[in-house]
């Protein structure tokens, strides 16, 4: 900048912008995150607040009339309505069955498919494909395959002399069937996450361990598994949350039956809201589910932190 003739009077330089650099940067930042932030407020925080409010009203969609009832709906769910605890129990069974099964299978697949061999891409694709297929098509096809005597699965079992149950009509088998079919649908996602994590582990670790006399199991247990820790945690959290939110799969395969044997939380909420039009009660249930998932996530994170 050329020096100005000095007059002895200090004036503000004409080139000084109206806003300081810092303010301009801040403005740009807000401009960039603005749309996302607005969307977040309108479509996430907004409904969340609305649900909190609804959960404290007695609001019947048909009657078009809302009355404030305080914590009545929560009281209903937690202490008066035995259905609620049945549903929670079902959700927990579903999660306890699905999460370990899914993770163990995902890890086993990832370990077999993380090396290079002819056809590996084909196998990865095969296991990942269900993740991107429509949940509706998936459920309908499986419902068909799992039919009583005429179902494909039972016909196959009959060939090897096993008399299969009517999978989706007996409460215990129905639960097992929805878990297994859900795992097959979603395991590819976790498999990909594990493959990525395995491939990020330098090969030298394995070589060093082998040279020092570690068996395959020791290499896995003492080197690979600990290094997969962060990935395992992420997978555990998202799979657990996913299992508590499962809805379409249950809706289409069993409709919550038989004898409410597969009636899980998310589906129960749907039923209360959109079949019985009891929006207040459904909202209270949604809040309870929100808290359950939140607590589970925090517990898992805390466990992980204690480990390291």
């Amino acid at each position, binding site marked *: 900048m050329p020096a100005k003739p000095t007059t002895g009077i200090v004036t503000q330089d004409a080139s000084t912008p109206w806003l300081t650099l810092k303010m301009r940067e801040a403005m740009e930042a807000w401009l960039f995150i603005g749309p996302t932030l607005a969307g977040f407020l309108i479509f996430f925080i907004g409904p969340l607040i609305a649900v909190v409010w609804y959960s404290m009203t007695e609001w019947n969609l048909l009657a078009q009339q809302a009355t404030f009832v305080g914590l009545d709906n929560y009281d209903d769910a937690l202490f008066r309505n035995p259905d609620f605890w049945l549903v929670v129990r079902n959700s927990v069974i579903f999660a306890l069955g699905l999460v370990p099964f899914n993770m163990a299978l995902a890890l086993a697949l990832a370990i077999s498919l993380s090396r290079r061999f002819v056809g590996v891409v084909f196998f990865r694709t095969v296991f990942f494909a269900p993740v991107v297929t429509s949940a509706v098509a998936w459920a309908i096809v499986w419902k068909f395959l799992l039919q009583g005597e005429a179902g494909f699965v039972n016909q196959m079992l009959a060939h090897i002399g096993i008399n299969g149950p009517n999978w989706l009509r007996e409460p215990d088998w129905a639960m097992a069937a929805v878990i297994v079919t859900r795992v097959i649908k979603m395991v590819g996602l976790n498999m990909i996450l594990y493959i990525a994590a395995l491939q990020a582990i*330098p090969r*030298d*670790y394995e*070589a*060093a*361990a*082998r*040279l*020092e*006399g*570690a*068996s395959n199991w*020791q290499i896995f247990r*003492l*080197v690979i598994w*600990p*290094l997969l*820790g962060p990935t395992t945690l992420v997978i555990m959290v998202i799979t657990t949350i996913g299992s508590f939110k499962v809805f379409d799969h249950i809706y289409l395969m069993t409709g919550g039956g038989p004898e409410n044997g597969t009636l899980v939380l998310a589906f129960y909420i749907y039923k209360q809201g959109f079949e019985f039009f009891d929006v207040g009660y459904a909202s209270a249930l949604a809040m309870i589910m929100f808290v359950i998932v939140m607590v589970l996530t925090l517990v898992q994170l805390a466990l992980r932190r204690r480990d390291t």
Partner: protein
Amino acid sequence: MTSLTLAGIRKRFGKVDVIRGVDLRVADGEFVVFVGPSGCGKSTLLRMIAGLEDISEGELRIGDRIVNEVQPAKRGVAMVFQSYALYPHLTVRDNMGFGLKVRGVPPHERRQRVEAAAATLKLDALLQRFPRELSGGQRQRVAIGRAIVGEPDVFLFDEPLSNLDAELRVHMRSEIASLHKRLGNTMIYVTHDQIEAMTLADKIVVLRDGQVEQVGTPRQLYERPGNLFVAQFIGSPKMNILPIEAVAGKLPGQPKTASLVGVRPEDLELTEPGSGFVDARILISEYTGASSLLHVQLPSGQVFLVAHDGEAPPADTSVGLAVEPGRLHFFADSGRRAD
């Protein structure tokens, strides 16, 4: 007795021959350095000795045993990796004790041996740290410590110093040398740094394209390189090579079969024009402190390097180049040494 014998060793990756017939004897307690350009198969050969790559053809003996089919852990070798390969989730203590642990050595003995190794490498104060909390040189030392703890017969090093800065490299080099003196084990060391090779080795193996070009002591390789490749690979700056026709008159000791003559920059002397074995004109002189490196041009147009002590003449000066007769290297057309 832990000698090693490689006989007709070959390695194929698919259709590519990476190691193409290596024969080598390593004596007990010897420090052998594999050196060669990038991609020549040094690491592959080392990993074959360790058992991390299988041997496509040939026979490998460690001591009196043929070990081709012996598991890596049962060969009595320990390896220090270029990447160090320290387990990031374990402390220095657990890293060093890992091998003992998986082999079922009881905790108190493990403790003793780890601490003894740590003491010799001055790692005592670092035992509770994780690898990420160590400097490059410290990691290097832990990697060596981990190898020592297992009390192997043979140590294998794959470019262990290549991730360190120049100063630390010189320091760790001397530590490895003194480690060898103290332990007296057979050691095989891979590098592509010829200074490292020269300073550490009892015996250097020069590799190119999966084949041994020459085996010898550092002095033998420097003073009597067996072929053009070794002549130019060992020594820095590189040996000057000149077609023999470019020299007026006959050189002392020139064999009949020679078609190329080589002379090291440090063996050349500047003289009056016409009094050396060839004349030259100075192009540039690079002052490096202890001496100057002169780039000179011969009448044939070729550029030679001359390491010159003392005052360097200015550019464009005409000079003669002289050399002691014993310092000339003659090579045949094939690249082999001709005398």
